[in-house]
């Protein structure tokens, strides 16, 4: 590894960035960011969520221009007019948000822009599927039907099609942004096989991943990003040291102390024999097998790989849409939850902080106050008319209590920073006096300082005897923030982890174990 890396480091970089800056709506995503990758190397780009990795890749992939700074290809400064321009210059990019077209077939997507042509330059639609099948077969993929519409295939299959499309264009420089996020182990192995082939052909490969074992198994060099700039580039680095550089502080110092869970804490939420809707159940297994209890003051973590039913579980407990089967009891009382208003007004009050605060949580163009009081309007209004003084007082109180940094309650939520937006979203449910909080990946895309504040807030909420169900894509976070973690696989509980075996490694290993053979 080091030999190849040393050779690479001496030549001119195939692709390089110098002092790139990029700002989105007041948030600086990149600040004087630099980067360089050489032909024939696999270069891992690591950093926390929001460190600027995706922004860097989008700029180098021609998706949008930087505010300032230079992009160099083989030492020559370039300016991309768009993604097509970048493609022409030999850059291939697998963006984190897949760019497949849902109503086109796998074949049409795979061969988009280089369809087989026949007489008069017309596309030979008849041979699209067979051509695509051959392309896939060359890459060792036989399980994806090229005639299927992309809308019909699974997320992991889509990710593979996306990778296949970019890889078969034989790019000189290949960017892969979180290519493994929805792949299972075997598919990851397939991808790495392809990456090694391309490396042998002299391609410069840049990829991001949150899984350290993947990074160490394939990367020749590692560049660490923090807060929008490069921290350093290494050929060998220990995981602990890397995480320190990524976060800027020691791992153990990052997480707060869990409040003690009293032995007699009462059940606040009980789920029995639930079925997660829309999740394919392996043949031969009972459809419903998801049961758990959540107690007052407890932080119960839900772990496992993406696509194992976490999202559906969280939304299901909130009635959006309801779980397919199973019983929910809140504070010991059985309850039917068909839509969010049922959950919000259920005995103890259930709250959901959803995955994507921008599309599912907040109403960005509306004010902080509007966003805070939306679920409790019934409570603060008389015959449908909102009592403005009450509303103003309540929103000011919560802004102060959570330390939301905003000039006033009338400020547009969209103008706040990510962390402060998240606080508004949590604050909404504190106003609603919800005792059961479903927190879904609440620290995603939040900067380190605010993340720390959110951890403290979660602890404070648990200390107030609220019950918290927590999902995080960051296993380290789950291991440190929870009293107990349930690992989901195929929509069922695969393992229950409690201290002392509650570690990130244990969660990962429980999630990765292959499902029992059908």
């Amino acid at each position, binding site marked *: 590894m080091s030999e190849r890396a040393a050779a690479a480091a001496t030549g001119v970089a195939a692709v390089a960035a110098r002092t790139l800056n990029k700002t989105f709506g007041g948030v600086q995503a990149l600040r004087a960011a630099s980067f360089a990758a050489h032909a024939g190397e696999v270069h891992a780009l690591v950093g926390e969520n929001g460190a600027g990795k995706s922004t860097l890749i989008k700029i180098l992939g021609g*998706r949008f221009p930087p505010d300032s700074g230079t992009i160099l290809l083989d030492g020559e400064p370039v300016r991309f007019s*768009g*993604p*097509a321009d970048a*493609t022409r210059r030999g850059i291939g990019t697998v*963006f984190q*948000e*897949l*760019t*497949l*077209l*849902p*109503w*086109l*077939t796998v074949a*049409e997507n795979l061969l*988009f*822009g280089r*369809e087989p042509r026949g007489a008069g*330059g*017309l*596309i*030979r*639609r008849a041979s699209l*599927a067979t051509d695509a099948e051959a392309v896939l077969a060359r890459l*060792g*993929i*036989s*399980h*994806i*039907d090229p*005639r*299927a*519409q992309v809308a*019909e*295939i*699974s997320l*992991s*299959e889509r990710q*593979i099609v996306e990778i296949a499309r970019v890889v078969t264009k034989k790019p000189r420089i290949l960017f892969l942004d979180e290519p493994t996020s929805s792949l*299972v182990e*075997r*598919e990851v192995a*397939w991808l790495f096989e392809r990456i090694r082939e391309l490396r042998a052909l002299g391609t410069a490969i840049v990829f991001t991943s949150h899984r350290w074992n993947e990074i160490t198994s394939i990367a020749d060099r590692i560049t660490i990003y923090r807060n929008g700039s490069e921290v350093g580039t290494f050929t060998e680095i220990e995981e602990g040291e890397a995480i320190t550089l990524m976060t800027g502080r020691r791992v153990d110092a990052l997480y707060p102390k869990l409040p003690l869970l009293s032995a007699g804490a009462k059940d606040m939420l009980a789920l029995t024999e639930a079925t997660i809707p829309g999740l*394919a159940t*392996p043949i031969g297994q009972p459809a419903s097998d998801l049961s758990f209890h959540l107690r007052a003051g407890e932080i119960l973590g839900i772990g496992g790989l993406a696509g194992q039913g976490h999202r559906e579980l969280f939304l299901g407990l909130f009635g959006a849409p309801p779980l397919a089967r199973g019983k929910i009891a809140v504070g010991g009382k059985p309850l039917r939850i068909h839509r969010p208003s049922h959950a919000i007004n259920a005995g103890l009050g259930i709250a959901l902080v959803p995955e994507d605060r921008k599309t599912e949580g907040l109403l960005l163009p509306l004010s902080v106050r509007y966003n805070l009081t939306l679920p409790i309007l019934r409570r603060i209004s008389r015959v449908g008319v909102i009592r403005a003084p009450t509303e103003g007082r309540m929103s000011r109180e919560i802004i102060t209590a959570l330390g939301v940094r905003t000039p006033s309650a009338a400020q547009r939520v969209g103008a706040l920073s990510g962390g402060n937006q998240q606080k508004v979203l949590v604050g909404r449910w504190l106003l609603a006096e919800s005792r059961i909080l479903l927190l879904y990946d609440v620290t995603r895309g939040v900067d380190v300082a605010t993340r720390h504040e959110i951890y403290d807030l979660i602890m404070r909420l648990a200390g107030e005897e609220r019950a918290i169900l927590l999902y995080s894509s960051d296993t380290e976070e789950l291991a440190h923030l929870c009293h107990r973690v349930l690992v989901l696989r*195929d929509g069922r509980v695969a393992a229950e982890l409690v201290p002392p075996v509650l570690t990130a490694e244990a969660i990962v290993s429980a999630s990765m174990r292959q499902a029992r053979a059908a």
Partner: protein
Amino acid sequence: MPRDSGEGAGARWRSPASHAFGQHIGLILAAAILLVAIIIFSVMFVIQQHRLPGNFEITSTVNNTMPLALAAIGQTIVVLTRGIDLSVGGVIDLTNALAAILLRPNLGNQLAVSVIIILIGAAGGLINGLLVGLGRLQPIVVTLATLSIYQGLAIRVLPQPGGAVPPGYTGFLVNPNAPTALVFLLIAIVLWLGLRRTRLGVDIFAIGADEQAAIALGVRTVRTKIIAYTLAGALYAIAGLFLAATATAGDATTGDSYTLTSIVAIVLGGVSFFGGRGSAIGAIAGAFIITMIVNILFFAKINPLYQAFYEGLFLVIAVVLGALIGRLVRARR
């Protein structure tokens, strides 16, 4: 990679026919509705006239449907890009009025005038396209505004119904003695199938499926949208010419109804209002369904005053049924 990896992998390998069925369900449904409509009409016709519908019935049905079919193809192209075009009526008004005052009995004039009118329609579409594409404005309000402008221009051109279309021109476009106009539809279908096989065609579908993804794939969305609206404008102009030929005279307001009926036709023809799915063939089928409904109502001795009621009702039923069947087909898999 082995086929048993991932969940349910391999299960989605189905026959090409099964895929074609699922992916063209809207079109198949439209064809089925049209077939049922034709059968109902024929049965009623036989009962009342004691013979099968003949040359006259077929010819008049085809000729009456031509303008709508063409307008619907134009609307389809726009809706495929996730847009909508309300200016259809205005462009048809304008081109219809121009045809009535410009056409003369000699061939050279007819050829030149036809080309000019089609270019004028294309220009109308181009303006829509520029406003939607470059101006980044909402199609529904842009085309509502241009509808008003084009309607105004049409009345300026032909303040009173009148003018005359030379019989030779009528005979060429909408031969009253035989359904020769079907040839034009055939040409339209061939051109459509050709368009589906060009970069432009693929890009139109890509934009409708997911505009952001299309941009990332290097599709020049602005240019493609402008071309889509321009093509649509040219098609409305041809519809205007056919309308003038059928009526043998011009009227600056007869085109107005086509804004609504073109939308009805494409919805009946299985074109998705959310973009990215649909075909001109479906739109043509949708146009014929509308004509057949009118024919059936006539033979069912239903008061023609109720025509709009039944059209609206069938539109709702078709959309709801289409969505239900689409969902069933997907769920069956």
